[in-house]
């Protein structure tokens, strides 16, 4: 076993996580879960940012990750508010029941 972890491992990990996120978005039927899958993808991308910033010995990558976090927070707030509204109007979170723009 190598003494140091190859970068490719980290990147592969992020790839796997990203794919999992996509899968979740494709196959889950609950809006909230799909939303969480998006967060998962974001995290995967964040990991690559940090890895590359480690590789380049520059803090910028981490800063990008930081901004991704901020945006994710804003997104979560608004998105969940929207979900609340949707639930109020439709009384369901199943995306397949939400395929029309107005009832």
């Amino acid at each position, binding site marked *: 076993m190598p003494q140091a972890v190859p970068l490719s491992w980290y990147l592969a990990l992020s790839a796997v996580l990203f794919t999992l996120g996509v899968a979740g978005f*494709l*196959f889950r*039927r609950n809006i909230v879960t799909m939303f969480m899958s998006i967060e998962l993808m974001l995290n995967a991308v964040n990991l690559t940012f940090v890895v590359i910033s480690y590789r380049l010995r520059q803090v910028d990558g981490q800063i990008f990750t930081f901004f991704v976090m901020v945006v994710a927070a804003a997104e979560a707030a608004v998105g969940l508010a929207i979900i609340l509204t949707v639930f109020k109007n439709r009384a369901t979170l199943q*995306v397949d029941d*939400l*395929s029309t723009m107005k009832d």
Partner: protein
Amino acid sequence: MQHLWIIPALPLLGFLIDGLAGRRLPKTAIHAVAAGTVALSFLWVLKTVIALQPLQTAHVERYFDWIRVGEFRIGFDLAADRLTAVMLLVVTGVGLLIHVYSIGYMAHEGGYYRFFAYLNLFMFFMLTLVLAANFLLMFVGWEGVGLCSYLLIGFWFRRKSATNAANKAFIVNRIGDFGFSLALFLIFLNFKSLDFGAVFNGLAGWRADTGMGTLTIIGLLLLVGATGKSAQLPLYVWLPDAMEGPTPVSALIHAATMVTAGVYMIARAAPLYLKAPIAMDWVAGIGLATAFFAATIGMVQTDIKRVFAYSTVSQLGYMFLGVGTGAFGAGIFHLVTHAFFKALLFLGAGSVIHALAGEQDMRRMGGLRTKTPVTFWTMLAAAAAISALPFTSGFYSKDEILVSAFHRSPVLFWIGIVTAAMTAFYVFRAIFLVFFGTCRGEAHAHESPPVMTLPLIVLAVLSLGGGAFQVSKWLRPMFPETASPENPMLLAASVGAACGGVLVAWVLYWWRPALPDIVAARLKWLYVAAVNKYKVDEIYGAVVVRPLVAVSREVLWKGIDVEVIDGAVNGTGRRALGLGGLLRLAQSGNIRSYATWVLLGAVSLLIALGVLGGVR
């Protein structure tokens, strides 16, 4: 840095305050703001002019780039030279007086704040026009004053005639503005800039073109613009109707400032005109024709404001004659004096109308000499000035113009003299009809409040002593020397003309009141024609307006709009529906399907770039 921008900024501020909050403000606050801002900017003008002494060369201030498209750069630049200084003083000074006057005149009108907001807005645009350092910014002011004139003519928008007059003014001005904008395009095309400085420096490379060269065309197009704004033949028709607006508006916009914008513009473009003699001849010709033509109409009008309206047109003609014959200084000088006495005439007329509770027909006035003494004496002064009686302001300015006209060609001079005589006649006719004899109306007159008479007095002093200003001499450095040695013969002629006009008026309307009808009966056809303003409006209506309307309705609306455009639109709509029907199959509204599509795209991109060797 003299912070020229403050000059227009102040009235704009006033406009914003009155226009936005005016509804809630008390009247005192409203007119305090309006007049106050104008007064402040007048003071600032004084300070600036004094600070910039002797102002031999233009003082330019560049603030920021307004438009920048490739080589096309228009800065928000203001400039001040002697010409500008004169205009600034006139605009802010007279404007201030008229603001004060309006406080009294509009006291009982509705839409008080609206009126003052519009006035301030007008001041802003007018000052922008005057201060602009390039043609486009000038054009902005040009259009802005047009807008304000429209708003103020139609101030009593419940009156159909008022709104019609407003529309007429606006539309007729459009024609002129069209010419102006064409001129701007040509200028930019040829000089690659619209800055006055740049353009006029660029002119050095050109030699005066004798034929219909570029410069001549530009000059003529500018002239078209000027005729529109300054109510010259053939576009003067809107000005008499513009009298529908409140009298202070007629005084400020349609006598003192806005209508003189054309003259200012031509004087501003003097270097260009000097290289386009043909254009200059046109200017002079149109000016003189307008002067004469309008004077004849003015002689027989009975509505006091219309009389002064036509006299304004004719005096503007004089100014055009002046600048057209190369006496730019004289033209501007006459502009200044005219601003004084014509504003005074209008304000006086307003005071009379005010006194007679809205009566405008001179035949139902009379004998106001004793009832409204201040108005009478001030208007008398104005009348003396406009009919160029010796040693009044009008005397000097008009004389200079006539002299330069004479040096151009005696014909111009003699026509000018005749016009001068007519001017004297119709003005004093008005004076006699209004102030002498016995009151033929029923309204019991009363003198206006001091807030109205004070401006009258100030203006009266100015129009009597305004000749002392020596504007044209001061403007010498700006314009090439116009060789016009004083000539006692000419002087005598013009004085004689003036006195003759006055005398005739006295004979007809005071000594022998029966005579006018006899004269009218003798020269029936002429009289009728003049009274009907030579049916110009009707001719325009028949020749221009009605065909236009017909064409628009029959061809453009029923033909092109309905058939072609609507047809095309609807057809497109139908096609879109058909296509959408196909595409709708993809729009299942199911997020996960969309996600799948996105994924498909992402993967294909990834393969294209990453795997098939986009990367490394």
